């Protein structure tokens, strides 16, 4: 390897960038694999029929689907895309996307493990996560019909049908052609070169966005030192904003972020810590970048706005209750 004598802060930025990519890329692959398996094992009609008719309940159930498909937030984007292809509406897919990183067993267990002494934080995270995911989905549901919310290539894919249609006639018919009918067929498909190609393509497409997100997160760490964020901690509202900003910047996986937050128990109120635990899994630099692979920028930024607002409302409520 050629050695360069780099300024240590630049070298650290590169180390952090690589660390984010190395940590997240395996989860992206996991998400792609889960998404593909979902495509083959679950018929679109089942999923859509599983959602209740009432919009409120439909979005709440979509938010809770993470209990069935546990992947890290990085792996969520491919699964969300798959749900859209299977027939979820944009708003339902968004409820899933926001709910899944919090409402899954791994994250619930790690939160309980870290914050066993603070039941308000555990309850706040679970109920707050369900609330935000459902409400944001509902609000998106009521956007004007004409608004284009999906990226052009995703919209086109939805119109033309699943990628693995072998010929033109296939896509006209009603059956869900991704679906497999037996274990043997499944194994055959899993070993096929075509399946591998699909996985590779989707992985590469996601990784593009992951790289950009990781680079922005790493550079932000360099130029916005944490001490600046903590200087805001004197006032309860600013303390919550400080913890949410930290969550945004450090983009840590929701499976372990409870332990990162635990470190700040002495310095920050439960409400501020809750801000970190609600916000981070839903919105961070890496996730914002990856969402651009499915949704149009205006929808991504609308999501950021809504989640930020609702998180602040919930944490202010918790502060007002005396925590």
């Amino acid at each position: 390897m050629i050695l360069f004598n780099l300024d240590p802060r630049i070298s650290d930025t590169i180390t952090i960038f690589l660390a984010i990519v190395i940590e997240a890329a395996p989860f992206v692959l996991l998400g792609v694999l889960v998404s593909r398996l979902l495509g083959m094992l679950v018929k679109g009609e089942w999923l859509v029929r599983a959602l209740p008719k009432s919009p409120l309940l439909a979005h709440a159930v979509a938010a809770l689907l993470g209990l069935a498909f546990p992947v890290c937030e990085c792996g969520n984007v491919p699964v969300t895309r798959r749900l859209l292809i299977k027939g979820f509406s944009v708003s339902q897919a968004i409820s899933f996307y926001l709910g899944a990183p919090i409402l899954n067993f791994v994250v619930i267990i790690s939160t309980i493990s870290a914050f066993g002494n603070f039941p308000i934080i555990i309850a706040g995270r679970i109920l707050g996560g369900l609330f935000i995911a459902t409400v944001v989905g509902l609000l998106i549901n009521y956007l004007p019909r004409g608004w284009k919310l999906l990226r052009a290539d995703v919209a086109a894919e939805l119109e033309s049908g699943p990628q693995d249609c072998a010929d033109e006639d296939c896509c006209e018919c009603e059956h869900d052609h991704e679906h497999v009918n037996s274990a043997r067929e499944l194994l055959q498909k899993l070993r096929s070169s075509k399946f591998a190609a699909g996985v590779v393509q989707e992985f590469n497409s996601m990784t593009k966005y992951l790289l950009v997100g990781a680079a922005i997160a790493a550079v932000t760490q360099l130029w916005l030192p944490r001490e600046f964020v903590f200087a805001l901690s004197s006032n309860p509202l600013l303390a919550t904003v400080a913890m949410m900003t930290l969550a945004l910047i450090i983009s840590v996986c929701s499976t372990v972020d409870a332990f990162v937050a635990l470190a700040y128990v002495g310095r920050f109120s439960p409400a501020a810590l809750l801000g970190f635990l609600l916000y981070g899994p839903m919105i961070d630099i890496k996730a914002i970048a990856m969402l651009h692979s499915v949704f149009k920028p205006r929808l991504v930024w609308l999501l950021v706005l809504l989640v930020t607002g609702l998180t602040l409302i919930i944490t202010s409520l918790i502060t007002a209750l005396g925590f």
Partner: protein
Amino acid sequence: MLISFGLGSYLVILFLVNKISYYISPSYFGFNLVMGILLIAFSLNSFRHFSHDGNHHEDDHGAGHEHEGIKKISQASTLASTSVYIILFLSIILIPARPLSSATASSRSLNIAALVTTGADVNPLLQRDTKTLKLSDWVKIFNFTPDLASYVGKPVIITGFIFPSPEAATDKNNFFVGKFVITCCAVDAAPLGIEIKNTKSDSTSWLAEFKYDDWVKVEGVWELVNVGTEHKLVLVASNISAISRPENPYEQ
């Protein structure tokens, strides 16, 4: 296909040369390795499909003008992403793997990490011979013991790297020795450190012999320093010797 193959290979190689520990927590090593191998396997398996089927991504279902725009966007984004990949691989190949430096250690909040701020197991530490206590044990003690004066004169042996005094130091001329602790990956790395008195008994300074980022083993005893109404423990070193950087540079 090159990207997934390249990234998969990178993950596996990092593991083989023992540098993966610079970036992520050991609890993820197994998962990373398996996923790296899968990435390589899928990339190789997909080769057949890509070489046979040049039109796999085009929309064959009756060519339409409405798909022209999508093709152009797709070509532009392929060009952009290829450039990003090239930059990524150049960084990986040309810049050697390094753990986080002393510059980051002194700019992040000191001694705040779940490993040392949750108090359940401090009591057993208080019973042990102080020479057996490691860095994180001492930091836990600092965080939870009201009476630090009882430690004055007790012997200490710790290892870590040298970094400049952060805000929390009693004397800016002193330096710190410590390690990072990580939960998930280097992005959440939090520094743990102990303040070492720079001036030796013969009035020379340790920093004349060592520099920041050097890995060292420090032996010494505690001295109590009053800072306003607070008491802090500073280590007076009897011996500091250079050691090689451990394979896993993070405190466990």
